[in-house]
């Protein structure tokens, strides 16, 4: 459980024996690469939109793209996801449009979440349940969702995401312990990106690895190179099979957060630029691209064109999104309850009146 499962090394050189076990067509690999690329480029845009004062906050994905994209590709259609605030890749693989994602970020009148909360990846049609911002609180609901699926004898697996920092919370413990007791179809995907804001993983736990914590719950632990999308894909397939058969999995994906914690963080306060540059060499896109090119699945030129295409699409979509009208003020009062009690009506009437006064003069 402390060995690291890797298929592509840092230069994209493949372990022939391991890759032979994976059944991936060239098309699918190209799709995976494209999804990672969209995440990388859109991520940059979301950072910029925040700096322009358009979006409230963003948690960058740079360096971690292989995990969400790899797990989502290895999942089955009916599977369910409980992500964190850093898992843009799930939305992309599950088919959310760039326009929708931008509308969410701008909390405009086309935001399907009605501007009630920021930065939440999820939606009914994607089988993704938006996370709670308080870390690891969502793991219990993910566990309950898997428990319900088991009761209903439905053939699906739940993928619950968390960070290394998230392992220190009581809710992590209670949830995974529960999954062990009830042998639930769930895979906990821990993105160990070495940091929780400023704190290195050594400050979270003295355990040798995160995957080894599985022992405490009688479940299976796996430790995967999270910057190697082929390893993530293949390990997820195996984890999924295990979970489906009643052995839940804690899958640690070892990676590195290349960017800041969020747009309001300044990592120079707590880590050196050298460390980041050192780690950048291991980042997942370059590695997978090298593999695709050296195996003749993609050419440099095609890659450049793909990048340009994505850039262009996002730019166009940003132009559209920023001109979508804002949310009406009533939405403040919607969805608190299934029906609106008298006191909320009372409060809403006051606020709407004020809003209208403000906007008629």
């Amino acid at each position, binding site marked *: 459980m402390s060995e690291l499962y890797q298929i592509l090394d840092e230069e994209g050189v493949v372990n022939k024996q391991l890759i032979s076990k994976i059944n991936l067509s060239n098309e699918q690999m190209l799709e995976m690469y494209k999804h990672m690329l969209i995440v990388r480029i859109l991520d940059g845009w979301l950072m910029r939109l925040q700096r322009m004062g358009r979006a409230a906050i963003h948690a960058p994905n740079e360096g971690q793209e292989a995990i969400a994209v790899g797990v989502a590709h290895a999942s089955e259609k009916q599977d369910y996801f409980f992500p964190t605030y850093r898992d843009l890749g799930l939305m992309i693989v599950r088919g959310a449009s760039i326009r929708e994602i931008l509308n969410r970020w701008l909390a405009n009148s086309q*935001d*399907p*979440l*009605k501007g*009630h*909360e920021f930065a*939440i990846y*999820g*939606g*009914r049609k994607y089988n993704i*349940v*938006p996370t*709670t*911002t*308080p870390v690891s*609180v*969502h*793991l*219990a*609901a*993910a*566990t*309950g*969702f*898997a*428990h*319900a*699926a088991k*009761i*209903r004898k439905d053939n699906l697996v739940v993928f619950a995401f968390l960070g290394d920092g998230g392992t220190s919370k*009581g*809710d992590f413990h*209670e*949830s995974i*312990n*529960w999954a062990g*007791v009830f042998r639930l179809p769930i895979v906990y995907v821990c993105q160990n990106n070495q940091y929780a804001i400023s704190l290195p993983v050594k400050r979270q736990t003295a355990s040798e690895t995160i995957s080894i914590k599985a022992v405490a719950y009688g479940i299976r632990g796996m430790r995967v190179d999270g910057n190697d999308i082929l390893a993530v894909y293949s390990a997820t397939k195996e984890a999924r099979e295990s979970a489906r058969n009643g052995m839940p999995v804690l899958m640690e994906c070892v990676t590195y957060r290349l960017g800041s914690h969020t747009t309001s963080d300044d990592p120079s306060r707590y880590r050196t630029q050298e460390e980041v540059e050192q780690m950048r060499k291991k980042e997942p896109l370059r590695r997978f691209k090298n593999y695709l090119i050296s195996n003749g699945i993609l050419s440099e030129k095609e890659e450049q064109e793909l990048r340009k295409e994505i850039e262009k699409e996002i730019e166009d979509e940003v132009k559209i999104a920023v001109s979508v009208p804002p949310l009406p003020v009533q939405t403040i009062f*919607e*969805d*608190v*309850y*299934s*029906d609106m*009690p*008298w*006191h909320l009506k009372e409060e809403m009437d006051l606020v709407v009146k004020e809003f209208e006064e403000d906007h008629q003069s």
Partner: protein
Amino acid sequence: MAELTLAGALNSTLKEQMRKDDRIVVLGEDVGRRGGVFLVTEGLLEEFGPERVIDTPLSEAAIFGVAAGMAIYGLKPIAEVQFFDFAFGGFDQIVSQIAKLRYRTGGQFKAPVIIRGPVAGGIRGGMFHSQHPETYYVHTAGLKVIVPAFPYDAKGLLISALKQEDPVIFMEPKSIYRTIKQEVPDGEFTVPIGKANVLKEGDDVTVISYGAMVHRSLEAAEEAEKEKISVEVIDLRTLMPFDIETILNSVKKTGRVVIVHEAPKTLGFGAEIAAQLAEKALLYLEAPIMRVTGQDTPFPLANEHYYLPTLKRIKNTILKVVNF
């Protein structure tokens, strides 16, 4: 139709409803073979089996959060907390997940779980088996909060809770689990969430209460009537939403108010009623609004009689307000 206790009514309602709707699942510590420490879930495991009656680890956060996940899936989970005093270990799940899920997902997901369990003092339970913690839940937008005082209401409100789409905190006053009996119809009927019950009409003063204190308020009202005071007694039954209309109508009639509850006074539910009245019925008030409540201390083991609103204190306060 049978004469049932509060605990008995809850038990039989659970059985009836679970027979009708196989999405209902009960989970909690010792709810299975043990039947719950107050036997509210007695016999459920035998009838519905371990998939629907789930004895859980000692994990309040997981119990609530797992219930939320089951509700997202489409089941109807009823989570028992052994004593509401122990719910604080899962408080984040309630406040950050369950109460806010519908809101933060723009209505796409919802977690209509019922979290039920005993509250209230009067059983010599000390500070961790006696609290009446409704304030924490009423103040949290997104939750509905119910406190029945009668077997009939307990059944009707539990069925209402199961029929609707919002998370419900369902507080059962343990001191009256087996002391109050009432005829309760078999089969399905509902008591609406958000409607108070005027238990006794009167003209001189309105006594507003809920939970076990309703019964003590009724007693105090009877004693006051002996002194020719006409007391209206209102059982709120649900605290979120609460029935402002019934409260206002009564107070506009009587002009005098006594609020009775077990929770500590400071920011106890009585504060909200008083504040609503000071805003909406000021001109009708003929006397100060008085609250007879638990004390602003942890719940003591010794002398709990004096910690709680006593019959005498309620009655004296009624007299004080009427003679103001």
